[in-house]
């Protein structure tokens, strides 16, 4: 071993106790560590008092209830997903636009086909090629609305913000364009029959 540098400090070895060569210094607990402990003990008293003394065992639950209410009021006061100012006739014009329909079809294949089938025949989600609709009357604006807001309860995502509005309209137009097509394995009708 190198030379003993104990002299540098005031350390005093406790005499008479030695374990397999290990000895111990008679140093006190470092003050700063004790201060940390006192601090945490005070914090503990404060937290306990805060919890039990606030005349409400459910402080945190109440705080959460308030926060939740805030979030929900925001939800309610906000007007339901705003349909951008666009008329049905304007949307119908898309049916004559092969580029728009092609783009709609492409995105449909990427995002929608997983649940509605490659040709809209339905699978997990309802089929999109008959005249039965669960929501809306099958107008392009209705379809676009459903794409935007989704049906979270049934597992359909709200696509607003994830797909640009223009493309949402193209998908809606594409879905409209496949109305009445016949596909094998079409899922049975679901929802309300809409007669045009």
């Amino acid at each position, binding site marked *: 071993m*190198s030379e*003993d*540098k104990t002299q*540098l*400090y005031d*350390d005093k*070895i*406790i005499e*008479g*106790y030695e*374990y*397999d*060569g*290990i000895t*111990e*210094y*008679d*140093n*006190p*607990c*470092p003050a700063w*560590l*004790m201060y*940390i*402990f006192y601090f*945490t*003990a005070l*914090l*503990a008293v404060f*937290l*306990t008092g805060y*919890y*039990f003394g606030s005349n409400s*065992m459910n*402080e*945190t*639950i109440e705080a*959460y209830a308030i926060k*939740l209410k*805030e*979030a*929900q*009021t*925001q*939800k*309610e006061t*906000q007007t339901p997903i705003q349909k951008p100012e666009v008329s049905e006739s304007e949307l119908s014009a898309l049916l004559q636009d092969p580029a728009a329909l092609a783009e709609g079809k492409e995105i449909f294949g990427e995002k929608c086909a*997983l*649940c509605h089938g490659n040709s809209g025949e339905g*699978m*997990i989600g309802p089929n999109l090629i008959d005249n039965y609709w669960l929501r809306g009357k099958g107008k392009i604006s209705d379809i676009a609305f459903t794409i935007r807001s989704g049906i979270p*309860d*049934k*597992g359909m*995502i*709200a696509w607003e913000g*994830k797909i640009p509005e223009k493309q949402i309209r193209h998908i809606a137009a594409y879905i409209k364009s496949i109305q009445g097509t016949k596909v094998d*394995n079409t*899922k*049975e009708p679901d929802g309300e029959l809409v007669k045009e």
Partner: protein
Amino acid sequence: MSSSNDTNSGMIQVKYNDQIVRMFTLATIFWATIAFLVGIIVALQMAIPQLNVTGWLTFGRLRPLHTNAALFAFAGNAIFAGIYHSTQRLLKTRLFSDGLSKLHFWGWQFIIVLAVITLPLGISQGKEYAELEWPIDLAVVLIWVVFAINFFGTLAKRNEKHLYISLWFYIATIVTVALLYIVNAISIPISPFKSYIVYAGIQDALIQWWYGHNAVAFFLTTPFLGLMYYYMPKAANRPIYSYRLSVVHFWSLIFLYIWAGPHHLLNTALPGWLQILATVFSVMLWAPSWGGAVNGILTLRGAWHLLRTDPIIKFFVAAITFYAMATFEGPLLSIKAVNSLGHYTDWIIGHVHLGTLGWNSFVTFGMLYFIVPKLWRTELYSKKMANIHLWIGILGILFYYVSMLAAGITQGLMWRAVDANGHLVYPDFVETVIRIIPLFLFRALGGVLFLAGYVLLLYNIYKTIKQAPKELAEETVQVRISSSVPIHPEQGHRKLEGMAAAFTILALIAILVGSIIEIAPTLSINKYVKTENKVEPFTPLELAGRDIYIKEGCYTCHSQMIRKTHSDVLRYGAASTIEESMYDRPFQWGSKRTGPDLARLGKKYPDLWHYMHMEDPRAVIKESIMPAYPWLITSTIDFDSLQKKVSLFNKLGVPHSEEDLSDANNRAKEQAKKIAEGLKKQGVKEDISDKKITALIAYLQALGQKGGE
């Protein structure tokens, strides 16, 4: 006999049992390799789901293997090696019994082998770090008792009056682990491979985390502190910095630690008073935890130069530093507000590995580099290689920790992000997963670095042992039998250190106080259950599905506990109540959300969605990282055991209907047939009325549908 009297000089000769230490040392080195390797596999599986190749190699089954191997095989063997090595020397006596030592060694290795076989097969109790089924549990308890007899027998025949601080930690470890393990494992078997825990719902949650947290405390902290207290001053050849600090931090640590378990259940349905107790005691743990770190580091006073020259000291100092980081982060994460962000995310995984990789592994590596040359009577083959191991290891740990911290906070913030309209900004769970996949890869890289460093240890140790002499004589020392008359009458703690039995009893009392105060009230669960919230039990088929859920380890990635936080409620629905899980054996609240919470999954998606999702998750969610479970579609439901299960649950107080009780088997078949027919209509070609997938779908569709909100 190992000792012989030399009456003339008052000296006796003591021969240490080094053979058993060598055996545990080699076992440590071997099992560490397995634990680390499986760790890297599961880390990669999280980024690349295609790596979940067959049933027994999926994440849900390998993750329990990783945790059990790291905990019981690697850390366990390291503890035994270190305890047996240091205890003999601190007490100047040979181990109590060579036979018990051998039984301990082979018994423990046998248990590990059983775990390595059963866990990938999905034979599991579904409780974290306590997955082993009841026959293995019994073996663990038996071998632990053998260990305890061997240890306390050694204490009884010691030639050193006083117990050094390392031994205090060993005593606390042995007593507490026994208590934790036994209480948490009490279950009723229905077959050699299946049993059900006696506690249900919140009781099980509380006892599980009392166990789980204190597995960290008394399996990964106290024994390793004991090892540090022996090997650090031995390697540095310096006195312990402060005896008084040793006393104060030992007792405060073991007394406070046991209370902190419920901090794993903050913001859940757990009663508020338990949550605040957990927070308060966790916060107070900060200084007592650091006591060990301070005493370890300051022991180097006057020998700082060793930090430049001695790789063993470097490993210990790095280990203590990581320990100090983790034990600061722990109290921080126990504050409810911080916890609401970190809980269920990878931050917790990072936190745990700061401890296991940084503290446990590095103490073990330092110890191995120290004792292997001594045990094999030679010099370490290469100091330089040990130094490189150190730095690669540190780099690996930092990669691991930083990537998990970033992943956890990123995902935690994404989960809670709410826009001005009160909508979740990322309602689609998978979006929050995609964002952190690069970090999963970084983490795996950290693991690879850590393992690469370890491979250097393997080579270094191999070469060291190879250069050892053929005949390894056992170390023999001359021990003066103490005159037993102290220089001055002893008082206080010094006196206690001479009384092993009294010390052990006091340590037991210290850990019992918190345990009893927290657990006893929930044993009369009725106090917390509102009877007006009537909950329907699961049907027999749903129970069969629940067993599949447990077998596949779904709980390793999915929670079933919607916390009382507004972001949880917005995402998953009303907060979970105690009543909803009151019949669940074991509880499945979970601890990690690699996938979304499932507490209110029922009826959210059609059956077909679940069918396709289990067959190939990426067929319905393109970017999903969930493993595929195609075998559920081909393997059959175990209908025959259902009757037994339902009767057992009924005996334990679950109000199953008369029909379910009298004819569980057929009732399940009827329900399965209905589901299968429905799916057939929707285009599923196979007949799945007796297949596992059907039971699982029944269970998943029942989640959150039984009342109790």
